[in-house]
């Protein structure tokens, strides 16, 4: 069973995503609300995929956290954000993520993406 790290500062959104992933048969790590916490969890638990929001709590944003994680992990990063302006998307895409999903999320689309990435439930 694959392990997925959800990085999201909105607690309800994080809970909902984890719940839907679990219902789809995935194992989820405790969600991270900050970039530091995400890096720590990624180092300790080596997730198979990371769902990364861009706006996070306490300074470090999702792109910066993703850049650090990319230094020690090859796990696919899927950015999720309400931002669609060119400045932010181009920064995120420079890390060559698996996908950049815009909120509101289509969980069906997310499920298909994980399947394409061979992140099996």
């Amino acid at each position: 069973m694959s392990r997925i790290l959800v990085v999201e500062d909105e607690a309800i959104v994080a809970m909902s995503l984890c719940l839907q992933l679990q219902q789809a048969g995935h194992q989820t790590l405790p969600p991270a609300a900050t970039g530091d916490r995400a890096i720590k969890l990624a180092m300790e638990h080596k997730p198979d995929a990371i769902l990364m929001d861009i706006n996070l709590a306490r300074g470090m944003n999702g792109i910066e956290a993703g850049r650090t994680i990319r230094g020690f992990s090859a796990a696919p990063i899927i950015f999720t954000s309400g931002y669609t302006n060119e400045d932010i998307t181009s920064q995120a895409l420079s890390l060559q993520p698996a996908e950049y999903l815009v909120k509101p999320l289509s969980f069906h689309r997310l499920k298909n993406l994980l399947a394409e990435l061979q992140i099996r439930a």
Partner: protein
Amino acid sequence: MRTKAGLSFFLVGVASSLMVSGLLSCSPEEKPANPLVLDQAESAWLQEYRGKLLFAPDPFYAPFEYHDEQLGGTTGLMHDYLRLVEEKLGIRLVRVRMDSFEQILSLARARHLAIVNAVTKTPERSRFLDFTEPLVEIDNVILVRKDRPPVADLAGLEGRKVAMVKDYAVTEYVRGKHPEIMIETVATDLQALLAVSYSLADAAIIDLATASWLTQKQGLSNLKVSGNANYPVRLAIASRNDWPVLTSILAKATAAITPEERQAILNKWLILEDTQNDTLKRFYLILVALAGAFLVVAGFMLLWNRQLTWQIARRTASLDQALAEKETLVLELHHRTNNALNVIISMLQMEISAQPDQASCQAMQGILNRTMAMGLVYQKLDGASRFTRTDLADYIPELASLLLEAHDGSAARIRLEHDLASANVPYDIAIPCGFIISELVGLSLSGTRTGEAGAAVSITLKHTDDHGLILGYADTTLSQPGDPPGRNLLTMTAEHQLQGSIQFNQKPGTGLTCTLHFQDDVYEGRI
């Protein structure tokens, strides 16, 4: 060369007053002054004749030598030279008053005068006078009335009556060289000019400086300088030629005149000329003042213009910054609204997952769909270059796909077809359109259909001639549409919020078709 230049300026003023130019002469070449050293014989002679040397000044030869009633004595440029000679020699000549130059020459011829001033050397005068080097040199000119044809030179005066002063060097010269000219001798230069002015003579020949002086003083405005006699006046100081010692003394005294002294004399008479040409001077002064004022105004305008440009640039930069800040703020507001809606979506998704009651789930799914419709609008606005409008051709298909996918992957079972014209509408229009699409998709998802395979939903958008929009929705395989709670909301949204009309065709076997007609300017001008 200062002397020459100074005199030229003086004469330019004179010439301009007579409306001519190009007839100017110059003073003799300037020579450095020699110190005045008289030998023993000269000193002894001077001592012996002190107080006995007679001199008769010319009363009418202005500006070189003339009697000035206001000064009560003789003055003039050449007279100043003679005064300088007197000072250098430490003597005072005894003045004898004569009425004309003719009388003065008669006295000199009879050896009654020791010195004659302001005279030009001629062969006839050389019989009884010796001359110093010329101190002033100036052209003799031909003057005619302004209404007469010009005469350029002496040849042009053949057979004409010309007024000239008796015993002047130029008179002697013209009489000898041009006997064809009819000379009318007069006693003074003024008489010569008056003769021309009153048509008693065709022309007059006198020196340029005197001509200028007299025409201005006497107001003889009908005269003009017409030509040059080509016989300049070379004014010198003369002395009786039977006194060679005096000739030697005068030669030494005039040679001792320094360039500064010459300049001082010229400056004195230049000032006189400036006073006479006050009008001209004032004209130039006004011209310079106007030019200065123009430069000041132009400079002020330039500075003002630069300051305005700088202020505009500063204000533009300030406005650009304010606009950028507002754009950032609007973007952030859209983003936060989208975030808040995503939180609501997540809450509903969790509730639906945990809710066992099918009816409750359906009700919550309806709310979820409408919330997603709103959220997607804010996401589209976030990425748009215009912050208040979105293109329905982009928004509606994405929303329909999202809704179909959200319903447990229904997108795989129901194929979406769309043909939408581009229509940039404000979000006040986009959101109710999104509500309507979400309700219709809800009807498609909750209803029963004739065959599950090949089910297709078709959405179209067209512009009308009256600047309206027609949104069409068709689900032809739908045999029995569902009846979600939002069905009434559909009509309400179309007619109340969009101020449009909506038509349903819902018959068993033909599926569902719905047509919404509305104007896209319902909320135009709203903030």
